[in-house]
Every structure is written in C-alpha cells, then in structure tokens.
C-alpha cells in the first residue's frame, strides 16, 4: 500500500482476527485507503458503512445525542466497527469472531483522532 494511511491501517490489520481495515469518505461512500484480506471487496463495505454512519448520525442528531463516536455491529461471524473521524472520513474495520474488541475499539478511536 502506498497511501499516507498505509502504516496506520497495517498496524490495525496486525491485530489478531482483523480481516480488513478501510478509510472511507463519508460523503460519497468511496474507499480512500484499504488493507483487506485476499478475496474481500472494499467498495461494498465502504458504501454500506458510509450509508450506515450517515443514517445513524441523523438518528442520534435528531434524538439530541449529537454525532456518534463509534458504531459496533455484531454478527454471528464477526463484527463491523466504524469510527467517524475528522475531515468527513470514517475508519472501518471488519473483524472475525475471536477478536479482542476492546483493544480494537481503543486503537480505532485513537487512530480516528489522528485521521485527517
């Protein structure tokens, strides 16, 4: 990977059970940078994560709770984690079942603060 986000994404993908990490443009749902396991397609994850984050932001905004800081969708086979960052960017991670989610969440929040 040659993007400026490469080192940041690689440090997350080194965590056990992480299948992929992406930086996504929230406004248009396109991939800005990605580090994914072979066979994973980034564009659908980026598009759906951005749509999800926008809808949740509308929901939390209209209910008076401000913008979300972190989204966590837990499925039977893994989890989708989204951390909104500055500059209209999202940090998105796809994790398998046996992943230390607390550590991943902390790392993502820390990185989202640095993401510009």
């Amino acid at each position, binding site marked *: 990977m040659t993007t400026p986000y490469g080192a940041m994404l690689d440090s997350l993908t080194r965590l056990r059970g992480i299948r992929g990490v992406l930086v996504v443009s929230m*406004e*248009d*749902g*396109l991939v800005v940078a990605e580090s994914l396991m072979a066979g994973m397609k980034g*564009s659908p994850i980026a*598009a759906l994560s951005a749509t999800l984050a926008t809808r949740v932001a509308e929901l939390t905004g209209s209910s008076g709770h401000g913008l979300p800081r972190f989204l966590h969708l837990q499925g039977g086979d893994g989890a989708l984690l989204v951390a909104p960052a500055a500059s209209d960017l999202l940090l998105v991670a796809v994790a398998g079942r046996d992943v230390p989610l607390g550590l991943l969440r902390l790392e993502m929040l820390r990185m989202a603060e640095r993401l510009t």
Partner: protein
Amino acid sequence: MRAIEPWVLGPLGTFVSESQARLALLMTTSGQVVAQHGFAGSLDLMASAALGSGIIASTSELAVQMGWEPFRIVMHHGSRRAHFLGWFDTPRGRWIALVVFSADTKLGLVQVFFERMVEELVAATPPEPGQKKEVLAADFERELNASLRALFGR
C-alpha cells in the same frame, strides 16, 4: 419501468429499488434507448439518451487524447440531485447507463449496485437472434414508433 427487451427489466428493477434511483436509462452508445425508469415524456427521454451517449463519446475521446483508458464513469454531484453516467460491455455490445439519484445517496452505493446490475444483465442476455435484418429507411419510423410504444406504453 419499461424496456425494449423484457429480460432487461429484472436487473434494472433490482438496481432501481436498491439504489433508490429517481431516473434510470439504459441505452446503446449510439443513443438508442434500451430501457427506462421514471421518464414521463418521450422528448426528455430521447434528449437525455442523445446527451448521455454524446457525453460518453466526448469524454472517451478526451481520455484517448491524454493517452488514458476511456473514463468508465462520469459523475456530477449537484446540491439536490446527482447524475451517474457509466458504460459497460454486454454480449449485445457496449451500453450506457444514466442514473439520476438524490444527492444524499452515496455514490459508492450506486457504484456497488451498478456493478451488480451489469453482472446480472450480462448473465441474463439471451443469445442473439440468428440472422441480423438489414435496416431499411422505410422501416425506421415504424421501428421508432414501436420502440416509443414499448417505452411509454402508448
């Protein structure tokens, strides 16, 4: 939603409902309409098809002049509406899709569903009818009227 070729309706219908497109138009590179969704009048439809195919032709030539591959997608993001124009290859030749969607729909989402529609269209394309008929000037108006009836149901 109407189509000249009925097998197009399935993939296009799925795309329109999933992407929440307001208008959708499938056409050949010469601007001949294959299917449409959301257009009320034949004038708008034919003008959009002509302009869409013209934009693809001119942007493709622009890319060639710069030594690039032709642009696959041309996007315009307005304040209320966005326009997506993209070409793709089918067993029936190169087709163009023009999609108008709300500005709050993500471009990435439209692209994902567009790629899926292309795969479904390619898979659904029936074999070409045996022998191609020669197009005669005398048949042109009758075929144009038949196409308009198919696209607008009148």
